[in-house]
């Protein structure tokens, strides 16, 4: 198995507040990882450190065997580690199509190549293929600010993955989405990422989503990972039940079709 991500003794302090402490994890190709934990547990801080948005106070982060500490988000992105956002980061005044076109343009060009025309038939075809993969073709010409939340989330993820990343980190892909739509949305996302053979890591509060779509869970609590185990084990873990998911949650509902 190829190692995608390796994190050692990662720590982040904001003044006296410890936002992340003693984080040691590894990710192999093909793993789907769910990051769970209460608000303020350090999940997004972790994602921000790995993607270069926040410099860690100490520790090592290796992506595909190469240290990414000190790199900017754009450099980490170019290496093949991409992310989506809890609040979709798209170009609101533009159409879905133009959003994607710019995304591909930036991903495919550098240096003087940036002065070549953005509109090319080949690139437009790639945009349409990506819209199809994320099942948002019908919104092709809609302005991004007018999109339903779920579509905007898909657009955000479609833009984040134009480089066919090795690893993608999704920050709460289903937040702000109604309970009925969550599973359909995740199906689209996971299917699309599977086609691209991308390793996925996502932050999620809904345990039914976690149980269904990941095979491994990291539970964050007060800046530390209190549990790193398979999904089934994590759901039974005492500490996880006490600090993250609550005693009332009974795993296995998904298979029972509770959501359907």
């Amino acid at each position, binding site marked *: 198995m190829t190692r995608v991500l390796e994190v050692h003794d990662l720590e982040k302090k904001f003044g006296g507040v410890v936002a992340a402490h003693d984080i040691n994890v590894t990710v192999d190709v093909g793993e789907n990882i769910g990051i769970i934990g209460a608000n303020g547990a350090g999940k997004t801080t972790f994602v921000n450190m790995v993607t270069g948005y926040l410099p860690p106070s100490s520790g090592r982060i290796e992506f595909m065997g190469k240290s990414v500490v000190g790199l900017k988000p754009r450099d980490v*992105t170019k290496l093949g580690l991409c992310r989506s956002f809890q609040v979709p980061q798209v170009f609101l*005044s533009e159409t879905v199509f*133009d959003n994607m076109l710019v995304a591909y*343009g*930036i991903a495919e060009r550098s240096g003087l190549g940036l*002065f070549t*025309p953005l509109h090319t038939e080949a690139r437009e075809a790639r945009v349409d293929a990506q819209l199809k993969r994320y099942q948002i073709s019908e919104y092709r010409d809609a302005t991004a600010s007018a999109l339903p939340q779920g579509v905007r989330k898909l657009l955000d993820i479609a*833009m*984040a993955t134009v480089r066919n990343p090795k690893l993608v980190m999704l920050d709460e892909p289903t937040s702000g989405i109604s309970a009925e739509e969550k599973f359909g949305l995740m199906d689209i996302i996971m299917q699309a990422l599977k086609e691209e053979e991308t390793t996925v890591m996502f932050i999620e509060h809904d345990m039914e989503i976690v149980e269904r779509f990941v095979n491994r869970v990291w539970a964050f609590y007060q800046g530390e990972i209190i549990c790193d185990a398979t999904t089934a084990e994590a759901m039974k873990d005492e500490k996880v039940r006490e600090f993250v998911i609550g005693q009332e949650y009974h795993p296995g509902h998904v298979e029972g079709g509770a959501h359907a």
Partner: protein
Amino acid sequence: MTRQFDRTFWGLTAGLLFLFVLNLFLEEWMRTIGLQSLSRGLVAVGLLILWRTGLVSFGHALFFGFGAYTVALMQIVGVNDIFVLMFCGTAVAGLFAFLLGFLLRQYRAIFFALLNMAFSMILYGVLAKVESLGSTDGIGINQITYLGLKPEGEGYRMALFVFAAVFAYIAAVGAHWYLKSTLGMMTMAVRENEIRVEYLGYSAERAIHVKYVISGLLAGAGGVIMAITVGHVDPESMVYWIVSGDFVFITILSGTGNVGATFIGALVYELLRTYAFEFAPQIWQLILGGSLLFIIMFLPDGLWSIRSEWRNRRNLAAAARSETQVAE
């Protein structure tokens, strides 16, 4: 790239040919207005590029001044060829834009606008104080030559007009193509969402820096043409903050829809100013201010939006007609 008919390109080309013909019939004062419009239009194209990025500069007279004073200073050492003067004027302005860009690219909104103004006022202060740079009196500009040729009489200004028109054409077509390139389309991306640009793999600051240098080059070129047109450079008319204000005025007047509209806007501004001053010398600023107010209230997207307004009205009228037909 021209899978479809590029209207702007052909519009600009037609405009250039029209100017060539017009040049034969223009009276001298009209030609001067035309030259000043081309000069300020060039600067405004640079501001358009910044504007699309979400940035306004209240200090582009800085680069305008670099262009103009480069002409004056090079003539002192005996260089009179317009091609050399143009090259050096834009290069000096571009170089300063490149250097200042490292600082400016870190700022946005009002801070960006006023920091530009601060730098332009520093240059103003230096030019106004230093005797060898002409102080507040400025420096006179000698007649220029074209690769050794020196047209006489009316031909002198006609040649200058042709030169300015061709240069403006090349710059406008270049800017138009640039805006359609990947980097040019990043104007929108940076304005809308810098975080997304970073996470797509490009530096928003670098994108802004490139645009800043382009706008500096264009402003320098405008300064070169203005210096030769007016025949004189001084801090008040080349670098003062009001000069920067004129450029912003033209940008608002023209709108950011199209580079061609910028030159039309520059001409309208020039005419407005000339006639307001001629017919109402006491209140000409009031007329300019009133026009700006009118534009902002009724044509917030500038002169360019007249076109789409008309189209909308025509469509509405057509829709109303077809509805009546259906009703009948």
